[in-house]
């Protein structure tokens, strides 16, 4: 399971970075989305994968007697997914507006704010 996750994470990161480095605005957003998903899976992996019980303690017990699964990474990922979703939707609307106003999808042509002195 770990190995599979590692491969997927690597692929998502590589794909995300490759897309980020393309000249098209649309591909850049795809890249950011891929990267975001890769990061979420990375947190999932780094939070340790355990086949355990839910972390709910018995009423009469003081400590966990069996292996339990850490719920925190899931909470973190859930938060990150929600935030990422909001940011990505904003970014998609933004590139739509930019495309409508500037009439280009090529990032290399978006250089007027840099060039004017």
């Amino acid at each position: 399971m770990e190995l599979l996750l590692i491969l997927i994470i690597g692929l998502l990161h590589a794909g995300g970075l490759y897309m980020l480095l393309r000249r098209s605005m649309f591909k850049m957003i795809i890249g950011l989305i891929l990267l975001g998903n890769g990061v979420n899976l990375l947190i999932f992996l780094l939070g340790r994968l355990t086949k355990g019980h839910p972390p709910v303690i018995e009423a009469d017990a003081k400590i966990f007697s069996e292996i339990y699964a850490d719920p925190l990474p899931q909470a973190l990922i859930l938060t990150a997914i929600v935030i990422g979703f909001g940011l990505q939707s904003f970014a998609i609307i933004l590139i739509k507006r930019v495309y409508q106003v500037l009439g280009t999808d090529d990032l290399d042509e978006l250089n007027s704010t840099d060039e004017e002195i």
Partner: protein
Amino acid sequence: MNNPYIVLPIILQLVAAVVLMFFWTKTKAQKLLSIIFSVAAVLVAAYLLISVWHEGILVTQSGNWKAPFGITFVADLLGVTLVLVSSIAALGVSIFSSGSMREERLKFGYYPVFHFLVMGLQGAFLTGDIFNLYVWFEVIIISSFVLMTLGGKKAQLEGAIKYVSLNLLASSLFLIGIGFLYGLTGTLNMADLSIKIKEIQNIGLVNVTAGLFLVAFGIKSAIFPMYFWLPASYHTPPPAVTAIFGGLLTKVGVYAMLRTFSLIFGGDEFMTVTISIIAALTILGGAFGAMSHRHMSKIFGYLIISHIGFMMVGISIFTEIALLGTIFYLIHDIIVKTNLFMVSGLVLKINGTQDIKDLGGLYKSYPLLSLLMAIPLFSLVGIPPLSGFWAKIFFVEGALEARDYLLVISVILGSFLTLWVIGKVWTEVFWKKGENLPKQANGVYFDELSQTGKWSMVFPMLLLSFVSLYIGLGAKHVISLSQKIATELVDPSSYIQVVLQNQVP
């Protein structure tokens, strides 16, 4: 020992934003309410600073979950001071916006989003949990995205693409760093991290994580190789927005670096050397950039970068005296940079352009206003009794003590270049004989504004200049405050003890 009132600055901004939404199209009511809420925020922050000064670090555990498990809010001197300073800057911008923002923008929710942005800032300054810090960062950037694009001008959208994409990348890197930290230590509470990170044998992995945080916060605070988005985007939104961005957004990055590098990663040789080189290059890169431009907001944008470099000096040397300089500079810089962008906004309002080659004769036509504008300009340079001066002494002293001559040279050179740039701006804009500029078709000029309109732009500059003068002339108080903060940063044991409530020695 729960002190729930320390989250009051955050709640106040949230309430402000929500209440303002009910007045969506009634811009007059929005202006008034925003100013009232901002004044209240300054009072609350001042009260908080006084109580932290007297009682020491205050903590509240959300949901009453004990420290390493729940989300902790910590009001230590560093956080509370920044809360106060940022509320003062926000008050200034709130008043300034009421005079300078166009009605169309106000009708599309400028004020609510502005208060959400300030809420994010206050949250970032008060949280004691690294993941919560990430969440506040996201609150800040999503609000800043909206403010940046509000109005949808061509240049704005183009600047926004650069700003948005790099900030999203930085957030991803920050999140990877958090994932690594959690994998290494199994905790997210910064005080708890501080203890657990020292027990880790694998120093290499800790350094990689530190590197990720450095890059993530570095993009946000615009340090050397990662600053190109700032001059490409900061001059595009309206002046009031640029004022709040220039004054506060990059400083949150610096704050986050101060926190993480004091509590979690600290004292590692490799990182120290890296940061010191980055600091020197940031100072010089920003200053050279400022020299080569003619657009006022762009010049000031590059100066932000240069002065972020000054603050990095303290983070790299990490002795008490250098940190004292960083804290002092941080306080001074938030106020002065906000003021500076208001100055450039007012110049735009008077003349309709920000190109310093076309501008001129401002001193002749507005002598008193020019004198007022001279205060932030010369505070920035650090001409003796003004506020920028004191911090630089500590930087040079700290760097000399640490025998880091590269930093000594770049701090001094950076100050000279700042002087050169500000001198150029002063002669071109204020002293040079002015020409009659062609009037632009749209937009209201300063002369045509009503008396209240004029004052709403001048008063915030007066307010912030007064604060700057206080920081400069009453430096004794600010230094003793910064001294105490620097001591807390160098030795975070009291912070850790209060947060974890003596569970761990």
